């Protein structure tokens, strides 16, 4: 099982720590206004490797606009985006329609959607308009990952991963089974908790660090103890409990990692 972080306030510095510590993903806070595309864009610009799970709240905007924003953030992140579609206040039928339209926009096909909630193209500008629409740019990824959350998520027959909040809700059969949970900061408790999630079938657990956690918590607790705990069975704890190596001497890290050649072939300083 892989472990990532929830970002309750959209804290870019916390995301940068998670990125540096090698966690798998960060999850945007989720706002009532459904504007997580802005924080996701900041995370994209300020991290380099970690996956960015952006909560896209349905019902706040035209799905075509939501799809455009996600595609832009996917490019800003170099293809590191995961879209967590939140059904929010929509009923299952309405959420399913919005989800289908979003996914049509991210596909490689021209879009033509006719449903109870949306008609794309709408036809409001008359019959001279094209019968299909090309929503551009396409995402950087060939198939943008989409996960589901919210009250209606479980009732949508899409085959997409649904975020689990309880062990019982996790499916051991799913290829991807995201889950969310809170950490306590107590090592034994949290070790048992993440192990239980792994045994329940979670593949990607996004944890919330305690509000009073030290800035070093991501490195010194989550990455050091919890990630290894669920990375192999019967983890020999002697490795994680061994003291970390000394900090590298100041100044030494600025030395060139490869000595320049003395052949002179690389120019006057070579």
């Amino acid at each position: 099982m892989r472990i990532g972080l929830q970002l309750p306030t959209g804290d870019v510095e916390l995301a940068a720590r998670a990125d540096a510590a090698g966690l798998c993903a960060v999850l945007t806070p989720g706002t009532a206004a459904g504007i997580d595309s802005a924080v996701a864009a900041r995370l994209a610009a300020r991290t380099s490797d970690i996956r960015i799970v952006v909560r896209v709240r349905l019902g706040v905007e035209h799905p075509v606009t939501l799809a455009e924003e996600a595609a832009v953030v996917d490019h800003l992140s170099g293809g590191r985006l995961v879209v967590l579609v939140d059904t929010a206040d929509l009923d299952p039928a309405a959420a399913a329609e919005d989800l289908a339209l979003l996914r049509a926009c991210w596909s490689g096909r021209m879009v033509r959607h006719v449903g109870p909630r949306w008609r794309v193209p709408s036809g409001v500008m008359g019959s001279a308009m094209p019968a299909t629409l090309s929503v551009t740019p396409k995402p950087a990824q060939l198939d943008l990952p989409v996960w589901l959350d919210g009250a209606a998520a479980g009732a949508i027959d899409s085959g997409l991963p649904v975020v689990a909040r309880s062990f019982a809700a996790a499916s051991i059969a799913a290829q991807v089974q995201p889950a969310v949970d809170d950490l306590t900061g107590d090592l034994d408790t949290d070790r048992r908790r993440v192990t239980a999630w792994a045994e329940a079938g979670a593949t990607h657990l996004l944890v919330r660090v305690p509000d009073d956690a030290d800035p070093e918590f991501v490195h010194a607790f989550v990455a050091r103890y919890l990630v290894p705990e669920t990375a192999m069975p019967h983890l020999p704890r002697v490795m994680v409990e061994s003291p970390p190596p000394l900090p590298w001497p100041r100044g030494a890290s600025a030395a060139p990692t490869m000595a320049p050649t003395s052949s002179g072939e690389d120019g006057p300083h070579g």
Partner: protein
Amino acid sequence: MRFGAGLWCLQATATTPRHHTTAYRQLLEDAVALETFGYEGMWLSEHHFFYDGYCPALLPAAAAALSVTTRLRVGTGMLLLPMQRPERVAALAADVAAASGGRLDVGVGLGYRDVEFDGKGVPRPDRVARQRAGLAALRDVAVPAGATIWNGSATPAGVARAGARGQGVMLSGANPLSLVRELAAAHRKGWESAGRPGGTPPPVAALRNVWLTEDAAERRAALDWQRASYVLYAGLGWSVAERDSTPAMDFLSDPSGAIADAVATTIIGPAPAIIDGLHEVAEAGVDYVIFRVVIEGAPQAALHHVLRRLADEVLPAMSTVEAKTP
């Protein structure tokens, strides 16, 4: 005189193909370069459903560029306001403004492509009412968070309305200076007629095609890249209506004529020629020049080279120049 650069459109075109991810990576690199060179602002541009991926979501792109800089302002030129829901776009702009310490310039425009209105399900005749609702939401939510509102318009009535609200205007780079002068005067008059809201006249920004070079080959290349950049407008079907000050510029019915007219606005040459040209722009009533030097797909090194040269050789001479009061 204030200076920025634009317009970042994040395209991958038929004649200069590239990966869109390259465009967005360079956007962030360019933001850092602009800040280093000392420019005030970076301006982005929006369209929808276009084959080249023209950026459809400016506020996320602006949020990213603002997050890698500390002084640079980032502006939307223009965000097509009628195509988004007022409350949500205002909340999004407020978030971007607040997170950047008030460095967001929200330039708004009505939009003009029928296919974009059709795709978003917004009847074009509704665009003025929706613009009004969007501006009210921005004023109530985004301005208190630190955003500054600008308006894009090419008609005296439109810029006068912006002036009457005490808001700045941003004028197109394809506009000849005669039209810029007329619009700047209308903007000032609108502000005065409304009782001078805010006390200080709102600024007039104008995109201008500028390239600093002494080299004949670079000059030919820069002008031909300008030509290539305006072919886009033929594809988009953009036009400027005929006015007293200005003949019509219609990229749909007369693309080669309109492209030639737009390229003819270019101020190009060594530094003294650029400085002379910018004095003319100031005399037309422009406070803030946005160098239209971003020609999508042009080599990034060439862009950074000309921006650095303009910053070093032109901006110091213009720092005390003020727009002529229309």
